[in-house]
């Protein structure tokens, strides 16, 4: 008993069947038994003095998103049987529901805090008393890192349990970046404010998140963006992917002391983000994505400039990555380090690159296309070894693929005669609907969903960054590795703190 919609679909809230919890648990469990399905998001919202739970399960083969729902009292007295016992991928979502509303999940492996939100159910839970897993032993020692790290990066705390140089266990405690994004989406009632908010969720995924927001607003308004805009959005999305992947290639080179690889890639990344700046005036694409239109259409002259730069970048990136991935001293550091198996990836519900490097074909561009991806026969690149090398090398392959795609689209844009539309900020959203919008950022699957009331106002907004699934992949990858390999393992995933903490 559940409803199915497609990506960027909406459904009247009244049409979503509210199941009894045992029936809900059976349906979720049954769906997740299929390897084609994974949980996109599972969360609870206060609704008519009760708590309504929504679970979105994406089926990559039928391209459907299944929506399941159940309700309970909104009280910390409520006890539910944990679904994470059988389907571990749900652990993080049950933790979040527990943290927000105090709901107990019987049999959950560890109901620890996720991000210490300002409106959490139990204010006695503070970052200082995070319940770390411990092993009592005189032979082991703990290493604590953070929240402030050595580099110029976001804050988070990592606690290692080590046997000599070997990591037995890593626990990642986040929450320092919590800004109350989801509440602000409701509080800020102008479309422009919400655009800015979506752009500010994660500065490295500006396009990914702002496009998820724009897609959601467009479908809740009952109309779609025109074809020209859809294609321009794919260009923006792929430029973001190219820039970050090249930056990560640079960072991975840094961490194994291959300075030549570092500096060449740094310079190439500059060329790519400066192309975005040439297009819209911001190196990260802030201000580019708006509902129904854009202030920065691509004309033939701009397209030619972009094509010339990207051609140069493509050639030089190929040159340097050929060198990097043929150097014994680099391969020795990357190969068989920080491995994730396909089985582990499936179990934790990994998405994006973390999944695709284990042979798991999970890519929203392919399975639940959005924007212009509908018109592109896109086939994800897969690797199978699941180690740092695979995650590094997948970036190289994806950069080549994205450059190829962007080239084709820019050539197509030059010929297109659909006029460019201006953004629309005065949106009339359809009343009493639930909308879901998925995009594939460079990190993986991003999900924005919202509920409107009878007046068409947003009364609930939920954001999910791919990092929510994938932080567990990092924790598993460093097990039994040298602690000195942590930096390259971490960099190979390059997960978001602010996207996780919201």
């Amino acid at each position, binding site marked *: 008993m559940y409803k199915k919609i497609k990506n960027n679909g909406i459904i009247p809230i009244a049409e979503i069947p509210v199941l009894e919890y045992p029936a809900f648990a059976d349906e979720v469990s049954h769906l997740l038994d299929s390897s084609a399905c994974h949980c996109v998001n599972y969360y609870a919202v206060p609704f008519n003095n009760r708590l309504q739970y929504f679970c979105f399960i994406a089926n990559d083969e039928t391209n459907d998103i299944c929506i399941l729902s159940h309700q309970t009292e909104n009280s910390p007295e409520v006890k539910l049987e944990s679904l994470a016992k059988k389907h571990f991928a749900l652990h993080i979502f049950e933790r979040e529901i527990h943290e927000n509303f105090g709901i107990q999940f019987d049999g959950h492996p560890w109901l620890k805090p996720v991000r210490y939100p*300002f*409106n959490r159910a139990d204010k006695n839970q503070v*970052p*200082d008393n995070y319940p770390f897993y411990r092993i009592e032993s005189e032979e082991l020692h703990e290493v604590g890192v953070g*929240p*402030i790290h*050595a*580099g*110029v*990066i*976001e*804050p988070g705390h990592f606690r290692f349990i080590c046997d000599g140089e070997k990591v037995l266990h890593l626990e990642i405690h986040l*929450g*320092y*970046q*919590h*800004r*109350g994004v989801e*509440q*602000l989406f409701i*509080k*800020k009632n*102008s479309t*422009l*404010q919400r*655009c*800015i*908010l979506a752009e*500010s*969720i*994660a*500065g*490295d995924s*500006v396009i990914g998140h702002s496009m998820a927001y724009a897609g959601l607003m467009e479908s809740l308004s009952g109309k779609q963006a025109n074809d020209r805009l859809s294609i321009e959005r794919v260009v923006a999305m792929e430029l973001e992917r190219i820039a970050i992947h090249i*930056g990560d290639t640079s960072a991975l080179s840094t961490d194994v002391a291959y300075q*030549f690889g570092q*500096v*060449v890639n*740094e*310079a190439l990344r*500059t060329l790519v983000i*400066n192309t975005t*700046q*040439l*297009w*819209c*005036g*911001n*190196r*990260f694409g*802030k*201000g580019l994505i708006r509902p129904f239109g854009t202030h*920065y259409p691509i004309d033939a002259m701009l397209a030619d400039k972009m094509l010339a730069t990207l051609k140069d970048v493509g050639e*030089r990136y190929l*040159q*340097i990555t*050929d*060198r990097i991935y043929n150097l014994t001293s680099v391969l020795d550091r990357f190969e068989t380090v920080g491995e994730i198996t396909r089985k582990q990836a499936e179990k934790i519900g990994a998405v994006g690159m973390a999944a695709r490097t284990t042979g798991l074909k999970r890519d929203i561009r392919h399975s639940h296309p959005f924007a212009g991806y509908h018109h592109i026969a896109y086939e994800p690149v897969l690797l199978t070894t699941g180690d740092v090398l695979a995650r590094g090398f997948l970036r190289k392959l994806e950069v080549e693929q994205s450059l190829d795609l962007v080239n084709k689209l820019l050539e197509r844009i030059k010929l297109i005669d659909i006029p460019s539309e201006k953004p629309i900020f005065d949106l009339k959203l359809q009343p009493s609907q639930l909308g879901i919008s998925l995009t594939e950022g460079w990190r993986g699957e991003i999900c924005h969903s919202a509920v409107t009331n009878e007046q068409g106002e947003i009364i609930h907004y939920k954001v999910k960054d791919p990092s929510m699934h994938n932080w567990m992949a990092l924790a598993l990858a460093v097990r039994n590795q040298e602690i000195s390999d942590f930096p390259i393992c971490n960099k190979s995933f390059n997960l978001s703190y*602010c996207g996780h*903490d919201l």
Partner: protein
Amino acid sequence: MLFDEIKIFMRHGQQFIPDVTKVELAPLFRGRPEISASITAEEAGVAQQLCPTGAIGTSPASINLGKCVFCKECHFLFPEKIRFTNDYKIATNNPDRLIIKAGDNSPVTLDADLVRKEIKSFFGHALKLRQVSAAGDNACEMELNACGNVNFDMGRWGIEFVASPRHADGLVITGPISENMAQALEICYHSTPNPKLLILVGTDAISGGIFADSPALNRDFLNKYPIDLYVPGNPAHPLTFINGVLELTRGKR
């Protein structure tokens, strides 16, 4: 093998920007805004209504760079009256200079009288900074990393980011400062030896930006300690940061 590297090296060529004070950024880059003196109070009021972060004032018409997220929507509303130039030198030590008034198209500069005397003698030759991201969205953090890359190469002036606050001459804060990060920031500040600089980078750090009224923030820290430099931007461009820091520590160049 080595030949491959030489080939790449040759094609790579010179990457560093020889003079960071004279770079011409892309025409669309959103830097220092200019408001026409002919803007009416009514127009300014309409722009104020639209502004997502309350950066626009009406009497006289003005834009506060500490609050502005550089979305440029006010320009699209009144293209003749408000424009964003590609002038990236918008860092200042005087919060009043962050407010750009109608008709005032002069560049944003530092107020030499407000620069503490010890800054030039202590930090004029080399400067080690500790960066703290306090709920920053990672855009400003990436731009600060870019300051040290082969293009901007801020290391040539002996300016770099260090791993420990105990090795640092000052703190660079990004992000609107979340409640959950407030304590770590305070500890970090006190771990940095005196005399020290305090630099705010990005609109989120200066005013809270789009997050300004979020209950998840705790910005008390900023009321307690003197701030030496404001570097506006969303995110702040590496050239804004580098030029601001150079002017602060070495005077007008």
